[in-house]
């Protein structure tokens, strides 16, 4: 059964020049025990989608969806408070920028202990405090912080960014969530720490059967850990499928370019030649193209692309493109050649 099932979720932003459609009809579904990656350039609305799921966007943002189910419960029928109460119990989120997401005037230990639900504690009220503290120490050990007493008694500004991020992860794990949304959890870390964090997430996924939605812009790194991947571009759904499908047989020109732009794909390139990238950059919110938003940058764009394409499903591999790279997937080399020619 699908844990989370979202169809056609749109997010609009109020600006002085009217509403802007920041996220345009994105669908996302997560199964129980699934490790899903959400990939896209920065500014493609990944974090926005995550925050909309958990319901912490402020009044400026307006969220609509055709379907929004959580474990079979239709969330659209609930009020915002009921929805948040339900989701905050089952879903936890690791935010970007850990420093600004921790209260600067409260001790780390206090912030951690208030995230622990009192239903997890078994003893009488006079034993609660001790149990809470033990739970906090346990959580800190779990995320790889060894000096727990020092960490508990410090303020966020006294710790490094990487330790703050670990504390954020500990806070997210405190609620024993069913789904963990990790929004670039390793952005501020060096690669050894990154590996530790990813291994921790993979362990949780395998041993505790925790579903994880990992948001990242680094497709290559993501493929080591995830089982399925969803790709977004500029607030639009691009492609979704298993990691092998996305990485080995991308159907959307954007995913193709994303895979080709990784360093591994560029290994055969002669020195001092240009890397394979799409021309231009991601459009800003005020000047979004109509139809498929990749249009102006797409090597395969044609006149029909001014209308947004419908999502087509090829054996669980969903793609939103008028001209998907289907037939050519057998002859992979020729496709690559074609795309390269298109980009130069």
């Amino acid at each position: 059964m699908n844990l989370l099932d979202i169809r056609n979720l749109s997010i609009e932003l109020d600006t002085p020049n009217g509403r802007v459609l920041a996220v345009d009809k994105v669908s996302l579904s997560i199964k129980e025990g699934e490790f899903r990656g959400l990939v896209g350039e920065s500014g493609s609305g990944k974090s926005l989608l995550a925050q909309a799921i958990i319901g912490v966007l402020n009044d400026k943002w307006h969220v609509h969806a055709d379907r929004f189910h959580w474990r079979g419960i239709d969330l659209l029928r609930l009020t915002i408070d009921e929805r948040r109460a339900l989701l905050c119990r089952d879903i936890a989120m690791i935010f970007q920028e850990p420093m600004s997401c921790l209260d600067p005037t409260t001790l780390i230990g206090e912030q951690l202990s208030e995230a622990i639900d009192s239903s997890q504690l078994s003893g009488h009220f006079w034993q609660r405090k001790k149990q809470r503290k033990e739970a906090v120490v346990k959580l800190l050990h779990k995320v790889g912080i060894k000096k727990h007493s020092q960490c508990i008694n410090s303020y966020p500004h006294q710790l490094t960014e990487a330790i703050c991020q670990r504390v954020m992860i500990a806070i997210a794990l405190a609620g024993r969530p069913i789904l963990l949304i990790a929004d670039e959890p390793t952005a501020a870390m060096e690669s050894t720490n990154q590996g530790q964090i990813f291994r921790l997430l993979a362990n949780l996924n395998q041993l505790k059967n925790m579903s994880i939605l990992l948001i990242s812009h680094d497709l290559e790194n993501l493929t080591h850990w995830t089982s399925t991947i969803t790709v977004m571009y500029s607030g639009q759904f691009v492609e979704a499928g298993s990691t092998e499908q996305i990485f080995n047989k991308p159907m959307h020109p954007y995913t193709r370019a994303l895979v080709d732009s990784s360093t591994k794909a560029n290994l055969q390139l002669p020195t001092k030649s240009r890397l394979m990238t799409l021309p231009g950059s991601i459009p800003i919110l005020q000047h979004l193209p109509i139809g498929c938003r990749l249009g102006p940058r797409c090597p395969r764009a044609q006149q029909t692309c001014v209308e947004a394409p419908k999502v087509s499903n090829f054996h669980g591999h969903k793609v939103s493109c008028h001209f998907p790279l289907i037939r050519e997937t057998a002859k992979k080399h020729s496709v690559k050649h074609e795309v390269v020619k298109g980009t130069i």
Partner: protein
Amino acid sequence: MLTFTLRRLSLFLFTMLVLTLISFSLSFLFPGDTVINHSGQINATATELAQLNEAYQMDKSIFTQYGAYLTHILNGDLGQSMASQSPISNEVLELLPATIELSLVALLIAMLVGIPLGFIAAINHNKASDNAILSFAMLGYSIPVFWLGLLAILFFSIGLGWLPSAGKISLLFEIEFVTGIQFIDILLSESPYKWQAFSNASSHIILPACVIALAPATIFIRLSRAAMIEVLAASYIRAAKAKGLSFQQIIFRHAIRNALIQIIRHVGLQFANLVTLAMVTEVIFSWPGIGRWLIESISQRDYTAIQSGLLVLSCFIFIVHILTDFIYAALNPLARGNHHGS
């Protein structure tokens, strides 16, 4: 924390030096003889004048003169009042506590009313209650204090007869002078009518304190509203929401402390404003404080009293500034570190 304290103390020392320099130079700028302005002895004989010149070292260079003046102040000798010919330090010791009492009560009222109202406005941002509180703040800020004082006397004292219009306490009660702060003196006294005196003193202080508190309270409303709106938009509040905390938990555990930190800094600044309002209000309500005494000395051209009064009042305001700095540091862990240039 020790370096923080030392830093504040050295700041206090140097500011006091500059203040004495200003009050010293005032003696030269006021009309009349400098040494008479210093000492306030207008009826001095020739021999007394010679003694004074000797004491203030008027024949030496200006630096020695300043040193002599400083020694006089440090010994507690602020000169004599030109009008009453009694030592100014005695008068100040008698009057300053009354002003401290009045202004602190007013500050307390302003904070207790203003800050929660501002928080309520921020939580109901862009709703009817927000607009109502903001318009009240605009109105309160625009009313001049002398007019408000007269209106309050007219309405509450003369019209309704609820509260007395003048003085610190009814003349019926005899309270021994110990600290000068009325409420502490009453509690220390052995009088059998202690609690009657206490309630009488409270009814006397309500009206002037509320009149003084109105304008600072409206400023606190705006400050706390702005601070709270900023804090509520911060990402740690969003993270706390995602943690599953209820709205009340978020407000009381995270939002209020962070918003208060931003407000406390301004309390010290607003206090100077509040003391100015208190001076005017003391005249209207015949409150026997240093503000009324200072305004009377100005109208009587009592230069020595003006000089010393300014020195004492600014010293008091500065001490309150430092105290708010300490409260700020106690609330804000970021300020306690050894940051240079703060």
